[in-house]
């Protein structure tokens, strides 16, 4: 009986103690007509060995393509200690630290994570994770409505340069509470939000303005100008950032004069593997004045009966298990283990290491763009400074190109056709510190061949 320790003797003794003859009697309060005695549709048990073989074969089937996709999830080197420690049973198999005295390990990690996020974002306080970046943005919108007591409109401006998947998620999660997320257009020449478009909202009751920096295209927004407009017009600022970029870029807490009110995003780049999309780890930070509106767990430092330092969950009155229907969010289980990985990652990288990772991403993406534009006849969609990724314009539909790159073992980027048809055949590409010059060369060579062959087949000159 996999994972069940009961011997026949145990079962006999336990049934006897309870005073029943067989285990089925324990289910006698369940209406008879509902009970089933088999589970067709579930295959028979395999041994661990058999499942290991199966999974290895499936993994081998998927292979390891050379990855040039970003678009919200980034391939970074993960230092070996990160998961060796994160998967230690004491972290891996513990619950949320409800018994603080028996969970000081997890609680201190939470406190350290919060400290790191607060420092990176230049905000006062951080929580200890939300599900992911997309839901963090949704929670930030809901929180802004709660925090901005004077604003009644629940009207939030969201530039189209914000990750489109995140915009969709934010809409699904906030619509029940009546939020209106209004899209701000971008400049298709620059790939950024032009602060002037805000002018038509001047004087209106806008609860918040979302600013994603770098934006979904990898371009740098004029965050200062946007934030200044918000402050001048009584709107809060919700910052969305790739936290790796914060090693180099002005942090949300310093945007404009006053800084953002809420900063959120996806901390996956901090030691969390791509893993087909999750589990990742959303983060959120805010100003001290708004801390009671923040969703999610928060660990605080305090003292014990003997005056020794210790850590405990705090401000729990914000949470569902205390406040129930009036909680700041329904979130309960969050992404603790990934938060642990991120904390260890940041300890290993430190300010210098993280700055180098960020710098390498900029440099590698530039190198990639150069290689592809000079050698493959594609062109960069936008000028201007960018971080981490870039939009390239092709002379033909992107999907078939990506498919033929995939067949050559290259994950060549993300097709923007669905969300940004106005850009034409636009491809979002990304190179982090993990891509070598040889990798970029491989991509350029393969793309060149792909475009050439397809062109030749179609009788087109590349």
């Amino acid at each position, binding site marked *: 009986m996999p994972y069940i320790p009961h011997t026949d003797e145990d079962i006999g003794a336990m049934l006897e103690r309870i005073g029943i003859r067989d285990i089925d009697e324990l289910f006698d309060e369940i209406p008879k007509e509902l009970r089933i005695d088999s589970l067709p549709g579930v295959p028979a048990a395999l041994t661990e060995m058999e499942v290991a073989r199966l999974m290895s074969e499936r993994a081998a089937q998927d292979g390891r393509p050379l990855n040039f996709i970003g678009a919200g999830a980034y391939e970074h080197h993960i230092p070996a200690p990160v998961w060796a420690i994160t998967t230690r049973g004491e972290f*891996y198999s513990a619950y949320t630290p409800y018994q603080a005295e028996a969970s000081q390990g997890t609680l201190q990690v939470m406190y350290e994570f919060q400290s790191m996020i607060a420092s990176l974002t230049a905000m006062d306080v951080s929580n200890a994770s939300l*599900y992911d970046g997309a839901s963090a943005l949704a929670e930030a919108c809901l929180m802004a409505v709660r925090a901005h007591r004077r604003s009644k409109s629940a009207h939030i401006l969201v530039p189209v340069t914000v990750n489109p998947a995140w915009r969709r998620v934010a809409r699904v999660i906030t619509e029940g509470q009546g939020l209106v997320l209004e899209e701000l257009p971008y400049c298709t020449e620059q790939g950024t939000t032009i602060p002037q478009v805000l002018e038509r909202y001047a004087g209106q009751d806008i609860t918040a303005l979302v600013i994603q920096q770098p934006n979904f295209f990898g371009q740098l927004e004029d965050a200062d100008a946007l934030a200044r407009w918000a402050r001048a017009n009584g709107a809060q600022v919700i910052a969305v950032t790739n936290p790796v970029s914060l090693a180099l870029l002005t942090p949300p807490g310093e945007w404009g004069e006053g800084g953002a009110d809420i900063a959120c995003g996806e901390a996956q780049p901090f030691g969390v593997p791509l893993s087909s999309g999750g589990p990742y780890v959303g983060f959120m930070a805010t100003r001290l004045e708004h801390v009671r509106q923040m969703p999610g*767990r928060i660990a605080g430092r305090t003292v014990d009966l003997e005056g020794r330092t210790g850590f405990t969950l705090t401000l729990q009155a914000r949470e569902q*298990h205390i406040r129930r229907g009036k909680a700041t969010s329904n979130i309960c289980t969050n992404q603790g283990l990934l938060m642990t990985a991120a904390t260890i990652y940041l300890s290993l990288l430190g300010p210098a290491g993280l700055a180098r990772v960020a710098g390498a991403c900029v440099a590698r993406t530039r190198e990639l763009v150069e290689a592809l534009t000079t050698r493959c006849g594609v062109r960069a969609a936008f000028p201007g400074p960018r971080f981490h990724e870039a939009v390239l314009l092709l002379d033909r539909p992107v999907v078939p190109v990506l498919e033929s790159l995939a067949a050559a073992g290259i994950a060549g980027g993300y097709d923007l056709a669905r969300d940004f048809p106005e850009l034409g055949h636009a491809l979002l590409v990304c190179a982090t510190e993990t891509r070598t010059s040889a990798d970029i060369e491989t991509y350029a060579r393969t793309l060149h061949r792909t475009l050439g062959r397809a062109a030749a087949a179609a009788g087109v000159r590349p």
Partner: protein
Amino acid sequence: MKRIEPVIFDLSRSGRGATAQHPPAAETAIPAQFRRRRPPVLPEVSELQAVRHYTRLSQLNYSIDTQFYPLGSCTMKYNPRACNSLAMLPEFLGRHPLAPAATGQGMLACLFELQEMLKAVTGMAAVSLTPMAGAQGEFTGVAMIRAFHRAHGDLARNEIIVPDAAHGTNPATASMCGMKIREIASLANGDVDLAALDAALSPATAGIMLTNPSTLGVFERRITEIERKVHAAGGLVYYDGANLNAILGKVRPGDMGFDVIHTNLHKTFSTPHGGGGPGSGAVGVGERLLPFLPVPVVGRDGDRYRWLDERDLPQSIGQLSGFMGNTGVLLRAYVYMRILGAAGMRRVGEFSTLNANYLLQRLREAGFDAAYPERRASHEFIITLRRQTREQGVTAMDFAKRLLDYGYHAPTTYFPLLVPECLLIEPTETETREELDGFVDALVAIQREAEADAAMLKGAPYTLPVRRLDDVRAAKQLDVAWKPAGA
């Protein structure tokens, strides 16, 4: 004398670093106007310092791997190590979520089969794996209920009925979806008060959220009656499947007529809790809600798998996460289910229930008071220490803290809210009889300590890394982020 582990920032020295992890410096050419003025304050420590620090911190935790952890409502069962190592095969870890489906057929095959197995164990018509935890599963369910009524033009249905015993996420979710909450009482026997239900039902009823077995540790005996009543009133019925472990393979929510269920894969299917997550709250739906299922869902075209999105499911409530949910968690659950197989899943229900009822019986014989003495326990049960509080002045909290000294994690305390001084105890099927017996012995010993020296118990724990912590101070003198000395 042994050092309390300092905060990592206190180990930091300017210029130190785990430099094997630093890529070479590169020219970034980011214009000055975008550049950060001061670098962020992050720890500057050596690799050994980081390893030592976090290894030591880990040792301060209680966990399933080190202690019996009978935390009610949380299903702290053994998390098989194979689930972790097989979900972490390099190809799975390295795959970008937006890579073409052609490069993810192995992973998608696992998720597709997981959907099928979850359908089989819940008895539902279809499953979406994307919700990232139980609470997001609840959100998904209520959002689908809302979408259903809207699609039927039934715009007035904006009330969700929730029993008073419900987990906090139920009402919180309803609020998050913009619903009004109608709380209904439980009877003294633990079942829902049907009269209260009748009173609550109205044309405004969007649905009911029901946890079964409930958080009172009992199976709702009149479940079909409830289902019929709500459906008759035009509402839909939501099954909080957080306690599915108790009935796995014995009875299926789909067969009870429910429209939607979320399951906590991190409970029933043993993916790790990780000190607070990640989880997965996969939802199953009946025919009524099928069109509204959140995307993406794994579909199969012939022998190829692919993600279905809004283009395939135009009525879908939409997307709930940046990509497709907590894939790595799903792979762990998949491995677990394949190793258990059909017979193993039935045994989960049976032995978790056996362990709970045995433990309850032994505690009752030892003089503890069951909250629902006339009921069978599900996979968990409640004892109330009301009497002890009255007689010795020791509370559930005192018992809980003292248990830590005995090397056991405490049960859930003060939940559900309607039972005073309660301990909600869930042993799970993976614990041995000896472990349960040891736990009984500890509670009996603590009871004796309470009778002999109640004040001592107030000081517990004594042998943990810290003594009882000052929660009030934590909230009042808020210190939630490290500051450099003098900052």
